[in-house]
């Protein structure tokens, strides 16, 4: 039968929908004053906002109560995250810990690690970075060269991680390091460890991006000691662990909503008497968002059922990232040029300058297409 990928129809259940109004009421009340909304999950950092979200129980929503979680469904988390992004709320402080690091620790970490780290994440007070990329390791993640050497009670880690989002603000990084063999050994001998970003032997250097912002960094480990208690999972199992994160990392609403505020400001600027071309563009963009959202919810349903929809997630991310890039390109030509302080121009400029990153972070478009091609049986 059909050899392509299927996204079975799925709807958000009522108990998840019920949260929508609560999140909106919260946002109406709690959006930081003089904050310019931005739907990019990487932009917008507010410790205060993140703590308030934590107080509402909206971080670690699906996690066990034992670590402070809410034991709620993926669908409920989906509603909360999409509402936050659509409103352009500042979510970057907790985003990675909530989406990725927490689930990783719950799946592979020890009970002691879970108790030590996760309650702080749930409160919005503990933030995590992803430590995968290195100067010579980008798409080819298995070539990681940061080295950990066995010492009494733990490991000494040396090497450099790069493009580490928020390493200058976050508390911990989960670093993928080589505990055995050489980069030529590829998938074998890799291990994940929690490293204290403020600890000894760790230097964080800022890297400015093209938009003039400072989000990502270089992180240098120089003989940094990591205790055995901070090794995540079995030493040598790192590759299996990082690849298992990808279903969560790639299919969420953040993979097609990054440019959403530009769409909102476009509709506002167009007003109530749109030209036929402007109407068509609004409808076109809406037809894409509506479809991507349905596909993304279908993947959430697969995750909720415990499946591992790696290929489907790659497809949603790839299609969604292309859409996020297309959106600013299309709307800019459908209105007269605006002065830079105009809300539309401001949102457009902000998103446009961040748009190159959409198809790079979290796996490049080319890598994702390779994953899809493998899913189609082509490689």
């Amino acid at each position, binding site marked *: 039968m059909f050899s392509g990928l299927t996204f079975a*129809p799925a*709807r958000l259940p009522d108990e998840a929908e019920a949260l929508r109004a609560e999140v909106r009421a919260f946002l109406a009340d709690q959006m930081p004053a003089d904050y310019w909304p931005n739907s990019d999950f990487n932009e917008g950092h507010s410790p205060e906002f993140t703590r308030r979200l934590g107080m509402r129980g909206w971080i670690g929503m699906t996690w066990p109560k034992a670590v402070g979680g809410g034991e709620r469904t993926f669908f409920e988390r989906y509603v909360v995250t999409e509402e936050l992004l659509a409103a352009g709320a500042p979510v970057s402080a907790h985003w990675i810990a909530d989406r990725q690091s927490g689930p990783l620790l719950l799946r592979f970490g020890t009970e002691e690690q879970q108790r030590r780290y996760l309650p702080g994440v749930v409160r919005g007070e503990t933030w995590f970075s992803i430590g995968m990329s290195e100067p010579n390791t980008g798409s080819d993640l298995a070539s990681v060269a940061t080295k950990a050497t066995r010492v009494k009670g733990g490991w000494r880690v040396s090497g450099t991680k790069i493009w580490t989002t928020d390493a200058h603000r976050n508390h911990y990084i989960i670093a993928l390091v080589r505990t055995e063999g050489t980069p030529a050994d590829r998938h074998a001998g890799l291990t994940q460890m929690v490293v204290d970003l403020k600890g000894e032997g760790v230097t964080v250097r800022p890297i400015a991006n093209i938009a003039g912002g400072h989000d990502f960094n270089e992180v240098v480990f120089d003989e940094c000691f990591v205790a055995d208690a901070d090794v995540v999972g079995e030493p040598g199992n790192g590759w299996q662990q990082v690849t298992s994160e990808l279903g969560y990392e790639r299919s969420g609403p953040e993979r097609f909503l990054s440019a959403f505020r530009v769409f909102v400001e476009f509709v506002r600027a167009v007003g109530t008497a749109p030209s036929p071309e402007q109407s068509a563009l*609004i*409808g076109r963009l*809406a037809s894409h968002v509506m*479809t991507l959202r349905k596909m993304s919810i279908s993947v959430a349903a697969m995750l909720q059922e415990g499946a591992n929809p790696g290929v489907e997630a790659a497809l949603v991310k*790839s299609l969604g990232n292309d859409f996020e890039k297309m959106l600013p390109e299309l709307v800019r030509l459908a209105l007269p040029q605006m002065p830079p302080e105009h809300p539309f121009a401001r949102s457009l400029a902000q998103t446009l300058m961040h748009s190159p990153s959409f198809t790079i972070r979290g796996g490049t478009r080319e890598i*994702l297409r390779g994953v899809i091609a493998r899913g189609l049986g*082509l*490689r």
Partner: protein
Amino acid sequence: MDALVADAAERIFADHVDKPLLDCAEAGEFPQQLWQVLCEAGLHLVGTKDSGTGLADILGLLKVAGRHAVPLPLAEVWVAGFVLGGEDSDGLTVVADDGLVAAWGRRAERVLTLDGRLATEFSVESGANLAGEPRDRIRVDGASEIDLPGEMPELMATTRAALAAGALERTLELAIEYATTRSQFGRTISRFQAVQHQLAVLAGEVAAAVRACDGAIEALDATGFGTQAAAAKARVGEACGIAAEIVHQVHGAMGFTHEHTLHHFTRRLWSWRDEFGNEAFWQRRLGERLAASGADALWDFIAREG
């Protein structure tokens, strides 16, 4: 969708619809034998009052029909049966579009028009779409008034989205099959990354089209069918153009021949994306509604109806 009915339809289409049949139909010959087989299986009555099937079955079965490029006006027959309640006759009742163009009008006993007339006396001027499917302009000489369901244009647009979703799945299969068998430079062309990436894009468009179409089908028993139908026709239409371009590129010159079956699907994609409102038409419909409700209602609209 009723799985038994879908299996029966799939089996009949797979057994009977092949390239010779498609070529004959394109030459203007009504596939009488296929129609007879469908009637014997009761499939001419899908959507009618006592059939135990409804609109979701019609649209689900049209995806199956689209996968096989079935050269019969099934969308029109089934929707007409749904609207009129149905009677067990093997005479054709079809639906005409706004411009009074009807699939297989030349063979029809009756034509239902979108302004609510059931024409029993009419003259026909033969025509065809890009795929060579009969699209005949009718002139109504005698008709009775009838009550149409509220969202008839949206429903007809969705029939084309469903047909196209099925045909899109088929073009992906054809392209994968071709890429994994055709060899150049000592290996199958599926080994080339440029080809793999094109097929990955194609898979994305196909998956999006199917999901958008299913969204409209799901909305049949909820609110907001009109919105979902507009979004589906617009999104599927966009996928049609992208997909046709890619599958032809992957097939090389072979796909440009009449002998290969690919064009039965790609020419249908090019036709169906235009029929009952092209992308621009439905994008405007949707966009006008969104613009009218304003920027601050945009997300709510998508979350509620999307």
